[in-house]
């Protein structure tokens, strides 16, 4: 029974005005963002004479890379429908761990491993609290942001922790083939995460779980496993970002990482990752990172006071949210 003719007729009018393919939609917004980055760069190149110099470009790149590594990390849980607001505090706490190890003479790789393990542990903790207790991850990580940050102040007594060693300093201050090392690290993190999303079933699960967690759960997928793993990844990335800052500065204070909260979040949202989950790209986040870095630096060069930059960053974040909403309503 039921031949194919009527089914073919059905696809007509109902599908008509909306039958755009998903990929075109996403690609067009990434290309649009890339165009914005180019346009903003062109404007600053024109009005800020020192913008297009090798040393300035290296500065922009290095400054962006620091919070960029963390922003790339939180892209993963956000795609899976879990927002990680605690990454800044994880940066601080993990960096303090690494710095303390270095100060007491632990070899560099081992000290870094301690920091990364701290990030992994805190990320898993975020995931377990949110999924096992069925709480909103945004609120959970707002809580752990405060908890982790508080612990960082307690264990350091609000004193700086030095991170000695020339090898270690190379991570934050060095150059490789003329490009700052933090940029290489950021690109490596971005590349790995892009591959993870694209070429593993875990990456595909992140999209499914973020798109509709109820439907995913009724489809037999484990929301908890996917989100805990995703938050663990952002924990490790945050730890790495903290280590790079420490290497660059030669020391770390409690509260350092928390300063990057807004920029990190803004980069991801500007990059087109939906706050409600289910869509997002690593390339988008990278473009978001560059855009924020360029705007910051350009305004500096033009002589706009620092307080205005805070205002502008906030406005860019809100603007990105508006675009996120518009994009959402088109689906």
């Amino acid at each position, binding site marked *: 029974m039921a031949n194919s003719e009527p089914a073919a007729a059905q696809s007509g*009018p109902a599908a008509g005005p909306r039958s755009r393919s998903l990929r075109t939609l996403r690609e067009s917004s990434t290309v649009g963002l890339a165009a914005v980055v180019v346009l903003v760069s062109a404007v600053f190149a024109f009005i800020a004479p020192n913008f297009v110099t090798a040393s300035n470009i290296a500065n922009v790149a290095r400054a962006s890379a620091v919070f960029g590594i963390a922003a790339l990390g939180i892209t993963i849980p956000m795609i899976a429908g879990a927002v990680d607001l605690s990454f800044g505090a994880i940066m601080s706490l993990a960096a303090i761990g690494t710095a303390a190890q270095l100060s007491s003479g632990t070899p560099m790789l081992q000290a870094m491993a301690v920091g990364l393990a701290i990030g992994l542990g805190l990320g898993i903790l975020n995931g377990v609290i949110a999924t096992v207790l069925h709480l909103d991850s945004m609120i959970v990580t707002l809580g752990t942001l405060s908890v982790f940050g508080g612990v960082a102040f307690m264990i350091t007594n609000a004193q700086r922790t030095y991170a000695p060693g020339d090898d270690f300093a190379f991570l934050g201050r060095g150059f490789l083939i003329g490009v700052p090392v933090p940029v290489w690290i950021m690109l490596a993190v971005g590349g790995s995460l892009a591959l993870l999303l694209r070429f593993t079933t875990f990456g595909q699960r992140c999209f499914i779980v973020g798109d509709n967690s109820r439907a995913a759960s009724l489809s037999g997928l484990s929301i908890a496993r996917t989100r805990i793993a995703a938050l663990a990844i952002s924990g490790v990335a945050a730890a790495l970002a903290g280590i790079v800052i420490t290497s660059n500065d030669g020391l770390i204070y409690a509260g350092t990482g928390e300063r990057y909260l807004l920029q990190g979040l803004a980069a991801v949202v500007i990059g087109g990752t939906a706050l409600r989950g289910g869509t997002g790209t690593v390339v988008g986040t990278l473009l978001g990172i560059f855009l924020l870095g360029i705007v910051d630096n350009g305004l500096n060069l033009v002589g706009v006071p620092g307080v205005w930059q805070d205002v502008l960053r906030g406005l860019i974040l809100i603007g990105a949210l508006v675009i996120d909403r518009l994009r959402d309503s088109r689906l």
Partner: protein
Amino acid sequence: MIPVVTSPSLVSAVGVTKDFPGVRALDNVSFSVEIGEVHALLGENGAGKSTLTKVLAGDYPPDAGWVEVLGQRIRFSSPHDARRAGIRLVTQERSLVPSLSAAENVFMGVLPSRAGALLDRRELNRRTRAELDRVGLEHVDPGKEVGLLRPAEQQLVEIARALSREGRVLILDEPTAALSTQETARLFDVVRALRSSGVGILYISHRIGELRDIADRVTVLRDGRVASTHLVTETTREGLVREMIGRDLKEMYPRRRTSFGEPALVFDHTTVPGICEDISLTVRRGEIVAVFGLVGSGATELPYVAAGDRPGNGVFLSGSAGLVPADRHAEAIFPASTLRRNLTAPSIGRYQRLGIYRRRAEQAAAERQIESLRIRPPATEALISSLSGGNQQKVVVGRWLERGADVLMLSEPTRGVDVGARAEIYAILASRCDAGAAVFIASSDIDEVAGLADQVVVMAKGRIVERLAGSAITTERLLEAATR
């Protein structure tokens, strides 16, 4: 009620044509609703029903033709013009604010005030009382939060709101889709009362069976054109279906099966607090078992219990289970994903080799299901939301076929699904049964249960009140048991 031809129609579309990029949604459609008439509009998804209602409601300006109200040609520049002309659209998408009271929802935007600014709550409640009574919601307190009402009650609140503002033409888009038989009967009483008060009603439904009870005339749309307009008394179900789909639908329901295998799903004195009590039933391989019950009977929830989403004692399952949930939008569809991914989500762990995800394997799987289930459009990368409800539902069923599920559990399997796709879904279920699957459905659609099931349990208030099998399954006996 025979329409009076001499006086002008209450509302009419005259030669309306509407184009969307690449498709003509309406092609020279002429159609009218008379004063005191219930005019039903039938058609498959995509036939142009919703486009026509949107033209009448002023949402879309026609590309050719016009709309008349009482013989006066209307220039709709916005939906406000249609509202001023007395045209009220009640769609399937709920527009109520769940956190506000019934009264606030009904009179939203026109809340009565005292001294210019203060909300006159007593007056508001008094007027809401009258409006709620009119739609059969005598038991609902005007101050009650709308989100706490059952879906059927929310629907009636929505109708009350449409009527509260001097509506002359009421467009009801599938008003009974989520209603039980009892609630449908109550809604029909309301509609008849409105008709005798001179309101014209444009009634859209997929349920051909109910048109005889409520409509005066019926117009069938097919591919954007008017296929026919009849007095309902002069129509037959078969004739209407033929006009809708442009061919004979030989059998809506597949032939009943006769031999069954081993038990695949067993409820043994299962109790889930707040849902069901002491349920015992067995679904064998090769068998379709339906649980039938009105809204609130707990029937809809049983597949969730079987699937372990609502854990209960004494549920035994052998085989690979797949659940098709009742609320397609909230519980089944991945709205930001492609048709491909919606077909493959439960099987995503399979498309890999040595831990590397293989897009090509997923693609091939999706293409296979699209072809065997005749999903339209046959485009793996299409947005799932660009598919008709019927095709979306085929996708949700198809994802379990792809997973290899052989115990299929479906809650309201054809809600919001047009008649062509409905028959296809029934055929798919029957063919899975023939291949040794066990099928368990929960439905409040009495025709579906009577037509499809080999065995039926009827539920009321969480308990089984009747068991029917084979030829003993008739709509009369089902209805009698469910309302007992």
